[in-house]
């Protein structure tokens, strides 16, 4: 595996390399020999035999030679002293001549730990060194003499043993390459020669090998693996845990890689190999022992039992797991957290040392204890409890316990309720338990500890179960429930703690009648309350131990007066009820409750006198159910109903649905909404009102709402609703929100056409009546009207000379001067039937009448009244048509329009050069009848003059 080269190479080198020092050596050796009375060659023998020590040395027969050459040695001594003084003067290391270096150097190694051990003996010259001597140690890679470690080791000269040990752990496995070690001694500036190289040969192989082999390393440390290849082989890869790693060439066929161990390895270790999966190694990664908290005690007063916490898991198993020793004695192989050893416990206080060791380290835990003060008793055995007198007995397995003053815990478990009782005594083995409930099952366990020097409680015994005797039941809690002519006597079934045994039956005494009721029935119906003696009812419960105290209740002679219920709001699953004090409540109150709208069995609670509030809680309470709570005053006679409440433990959104929602149009903008409310039994909360939601279906965003209080009937008129199509829903409003949504109802509103027609007819009728009335009034006052509307037109005054008959033509000349101006515009009008002809021919405008009969002309004048297209009333008048007002009566016509019209006519007449020429007047040419005035525009007044002349005269016809 390795070799250690031992020889006197240093000496040889000294002679060859430094001839000046050879004298030094000789002198030094001579000096030593003189001082020690030894021959010179004795040292040489010692080098060749390292095991020889100074104390083993024996003088040899060659001593005679020494004495023979004594003179020569003295000479040499003086000579050397002389030379040495010369060397000191020259600044050389003359004292180095005195250091012969370490002796008997030997090197050993531990491949598993990668550790090199070096042992040597003291430099013979160290005894003359007054101060400490230093040894320089160097570790080299043999192949290239590269230094891998160097260290200076201090050595005290006064050490008794002259043999020194030094060790060093190599990061690189020692198999990877050869390592050499050399030493030298040093004192101040003087050093000895290096000792010969001691070499540890590396591993050579014909196939790839990986080192270190199956090593164990600590988590979070670095480890160097090396791959040694066979001759001529080339490194292909190195893998750690199937991960390709970077490698470093060490020398020749050796390669290395450094891996950081981040986490513990599995029990099967982590695979490392190079070139081939056939050759590799495995590495275990874990932690050193982490045990702590060592505590030692005794259980049986014959042995020590130490236990500890294992701390962090080492992750090392099997051969690599932690091994424990207690005070130098190995613990059982499977020891994990406690170690047991037989010892004497009467040795007083002593140290207990636990050594935990695994490949990664050693840990020592210590505890100091007097075992007699650390007694943890074993569990009592054979624990027996008697059901008659409730005594508990047990036994101790160890006789030593019988003399111990101990304190014991007796644990009683009754339906999960734990009762702990302490007893003490010497060697305690029995106790009597008092205060146990009758007819109850108990489980008893016992554990004990020392009363003096109490250390810890011992182990609990196994449980022992027993049952106590029965006793008479407690009095029943009796109440009544009145229904019409029936009264139900109710009582609460007794709990296990109240019954004190198995209830066999109940006895109900009512007057002289006695009835036996068997469980589980716990009520009794009294249907006839007519007899006086029947109002007092007594109920008792019976078990094997006897009857309970009678419970009495007096049934009221008359039904309770009805009371108005007040609303109450529940909280936290119950009701916080308070009421006013009743002067009759001499023995307190009774509060009973039941769902308002469903049949039930009453529940009740009795409240002591003087208290007027109670928290009503029941497992049967349900959310969204209305309860009626009745408060009775307890009196010496029958209970009196005092107050009543109604409420919900918790109100919920209505689950029932509002039914029968209907919408009906009433009037043009009124809708009647009607619905059926949620029945009381379906109400899950108090309903504070209803909300009507509606919106125009053509505009869904136009949602509107209308609140309806519960005071109002379940119907509502909505007014001011425009005619359209609507969707209506109704919701109930409660304290918890809206709910009980009805199904939506749609309504298409129609406009009220009949009414419109009626209005029109009425309007028309009214107008007709008014017209008739006006007509009648006008008829009766026709004269007046006529005078106002048609003032009498004075007859024209005829002058004889002017009104001369026309000869030949039969025409008469109308004197314009005599024409009375009228308020009514006289414009050109159509001459109907050719009675008047306007002759506008070429300046010869003349009003001519085809008839010579003037009255006829007047008659027409008075009658023709028509409306022109422009809205002006026009009279077809000969005056209008023919009067030359421009000349004759310009001031007569007051109205500008009249003026205009007339002016227009006049203009027209002027434009055509009209001149009243009586003489030239002639009967109109029949051809002119077909002439018509073409309307023309007026400049400033905007009037459209329309002169339309049609040939409608009889002549034309």
């Amino acid at each position, binding site marked *: 595996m390795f070799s250690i080269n031992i020889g006197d190479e240093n000496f040889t080198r000294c002679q060859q390399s430094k001839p000046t020092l050879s004298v030094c050596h000789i002198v030094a050796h001579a000096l030593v020999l003189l001082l020690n009375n030894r021959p010179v060659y004795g040292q040489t023998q010692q080098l060749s035999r390292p095991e020889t020590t100074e104390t083993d040395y024996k003088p040899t027969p060659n001593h005679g030679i020494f004495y023979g050459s004594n003179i020569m040695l003295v000479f040499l001594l003086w000579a050397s002293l002389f030379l040495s003084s010369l060397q000191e003067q020259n600044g050389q290391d003359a004292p180095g001549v005195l250091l012969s270096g370490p002796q008997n150097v030997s090197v050993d190694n531990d491949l598993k730990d990668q550790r090199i051990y070096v042992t040597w003996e003291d430099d013979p010259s160290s005894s003359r060194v007054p101060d400490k001597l230093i040894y320089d140690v160097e570790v080299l890679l043999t192949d290239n003499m590269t230094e891998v470690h160097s260290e200076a080791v201090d050595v005290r000269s006064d050490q008794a043993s002259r043999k020194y040990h030094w060790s060093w752990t190599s990061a690189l496995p020692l198999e990877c390459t050869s390592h050499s070690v050399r030493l030298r001694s040093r004192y101040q500036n003087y050093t000895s020669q290096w000792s010969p190289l001691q070499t540890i040969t590396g591993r050579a192989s014909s196939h790839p090998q990986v080192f270190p082999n199956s090593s164990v390393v600590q988590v979070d440390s670095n480890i160097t693996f090396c791959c040694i290849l066979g001759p001529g082989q080339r490194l292909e890869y190195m893998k750690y845990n199937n991960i390709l790693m970077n490698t470093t060439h060490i020398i020749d066929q050796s390669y290395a890689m450094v891996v950081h161990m981040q986490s513990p390895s599995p029990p099967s270790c982590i695979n490392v190999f190079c070139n081939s999966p056939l050759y*590799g190694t495995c590495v275990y990664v874990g932690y050193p022992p982490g045990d702590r908290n060592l505590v030692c005690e005794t259980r049986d007063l014959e042995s020590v039992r130490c236990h500890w916490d294992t701390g962090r898991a080492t992750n090392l198993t099997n051969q690599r797991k932690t091994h424990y020793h207690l005070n130098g004695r190995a613990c059982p192989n499977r020891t994990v957290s406690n170690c047991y050893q037989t010892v004497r416990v009467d040795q007083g206080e002593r140290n207990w040392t636990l050594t935990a060791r695994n490949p990664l380290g050693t840990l020592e835990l210590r505890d100091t204890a007097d075992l007699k003060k650390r007694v943890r008793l074993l569990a009592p055995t054979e624990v027996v409890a008697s059901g008659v007198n409730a005594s508990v007995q047990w036994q101790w397995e160890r006789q030593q316990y019988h003399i111990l003053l101990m304190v014991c815990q007796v644990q009683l478990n009754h339906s999960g309720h734990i009762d702990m009782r302490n007893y003490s005594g010497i060697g305690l083995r029995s106790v009597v338990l008092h205060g146990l409930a009758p007819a109850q099952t108990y489980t008893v366990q016992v554990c004990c500890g020392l009363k003096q020097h109490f250390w810890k409680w011992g182990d609990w015994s196994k449980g022992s179960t027993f049952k106590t005797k029965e006793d008479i039941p407690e009095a029943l809690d009796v109440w009544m429930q009145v229904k019409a002519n029936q009264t139900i006597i109710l009582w609460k079934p007794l709990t296990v703690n109240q019954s004190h045994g198995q209830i066999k039956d109940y006895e109900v005494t009512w007057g002289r009648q006695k009835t036996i009721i068997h469980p589980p029935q716990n009520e009794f119906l009294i249907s006839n309350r007519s007899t006086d003696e029947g109002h007092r009812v007594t109920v008792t419960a019976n078990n094997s131990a006897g009857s309970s105290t009678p419970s009495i209740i007096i049934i009221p002679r008359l039904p309770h007066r009805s009371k108005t219920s007040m609303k109450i709001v529940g909280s936290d699953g119950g009701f916080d009820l308070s009421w006013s004090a009743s002067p009759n409540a001499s023995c307190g109150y009774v509060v009973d409750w039941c769902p308002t709208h469903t049949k039930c069995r009453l529940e009740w609670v009795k409240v002591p006198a003087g208290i007027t509030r109670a928290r009503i809680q029941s497992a049967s309470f349900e959310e969204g159910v209305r309860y009626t709570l009745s408060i009775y005053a307890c009196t010496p006679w029958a209970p009196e109903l005092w107050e009543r409440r109604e409420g919900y433990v918790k109100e919920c959104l209505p689950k029932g649905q509002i039914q029968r929602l209907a919408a009906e149009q009433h009037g043009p903008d009124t809708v009647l909404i009607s619905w059926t409310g949620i029945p009381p039994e379906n109400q899950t909360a108090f309903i504070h009102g209803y909300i009507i939601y509606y919106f125009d279906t053509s505009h869904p965003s136009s949602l509107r709402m209308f609140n309806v209080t519960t005071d109002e009937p379940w119907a509502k008129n909505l007014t001011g609703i425009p005619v359209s199509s609507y969707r209506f829903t109704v919701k109930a409003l409660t304290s918890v929100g809206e709910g009980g949504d009805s199904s939506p109802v749609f309504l298409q509103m129609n406009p009220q056409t009949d009414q419109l027609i009626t209005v029109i007819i009425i309007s028309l009728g009214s107008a007709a009546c008014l017209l008739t009335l006006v007509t009648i009034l006008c008829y009766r006052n026709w004269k007046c009207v006529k005078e106002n509307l048609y003032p009498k037109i004075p007859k024209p005054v005829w002058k004889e000379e002017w009104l001369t008959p026309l000869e030949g033509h039969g025409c008469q000349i109308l004197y314009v001067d005599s024409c009375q101006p009228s308020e009514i515009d006289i414009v050109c009008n159509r001459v109907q039937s050719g009675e008047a002809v306007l002759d506008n021919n070429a300046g010869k405008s003349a009003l001519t009448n085809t008839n010579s009969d003037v009255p006829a002309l007047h008659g027409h004048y008075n009658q023709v009244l028509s409306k022109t297209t422009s809205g002006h009333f026009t009279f077809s008048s000969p005056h209008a048509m023919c009067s030359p007002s421009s000349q004759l009566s310009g001031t007569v016509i007051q109205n500008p329009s009249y003026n205009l019209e007339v002016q227009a006519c006049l203009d027209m007449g002027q434009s055509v050069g009209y001149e009243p020429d009586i003489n030239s007047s002639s009967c109109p040419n029949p051809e002119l009848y077909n002439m018509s005035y073409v309307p023309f525009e007026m400049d400033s007044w905007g009037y459209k003059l329309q002169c339309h002349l049609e040939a409608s005269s009889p002549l034309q016809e």
Partner: protein
Amino acid sequence: MSGHVKNMCPQLPISQAARTLLSLLLVAAIDSVSAGVVCRKQPCGSSLQISLKLTKLIHKESADLLKTYKVSQGDMSELFCQMSINNVPDPNISGLDPSERMLSIYSHCKAFLPHLKRVTEQQTDLQPPSSSLLSKLSTAQNRTNGLANQINCIYQTLFPNLPIPPEPVDGPTSVPPSQNVFQQKVYGCVVLKRFKEFLSRVTRELRTLKSQVCTRRTTFADTNALS
């Protein structure tokens, strides 16, 4: 052979000393031949059928065992089984005639046993005590031992006059010397892989034997009796 001895008993006029001597010889003879195996005379098909079923069971379990083994050895364990190791028994069944092949099966069973034991020992140091691998390895050993006994019985039944050599006919394969943990992993994987292959071949062989040998049992028996 036991039957052979039994037939001898009533034929000898025996004294007390001779009776004692004969008893000792009888016990020695039984021990030397069957090594404690008690073979019941069963029909050929029944015995082979049992062996065949047992082989199938072990083969199925060996596949599971190999899978568990690979999982328990860490990464790259799949490569371990592909390595070649000389000291592990060869899975091939040798021989020309049925008797030789039966004998080869028996020998292989016996040869695999120490290797399975060694693998179990090696894995005991690697796996936690609760590991299923250890229990499966232990089961494999027991079943292989039982299969070897079954084959022995069949061989004795079919070929009563042919002795079973004490050493494996294919030559002994010694368990490897001390190995490092890595080599143990490789070795175990190769052993289990070959063991599985061997059982596969045994299954085929027994199926063939059942179809061939049992139908001609009389002929073989006669032949062996004559030889």
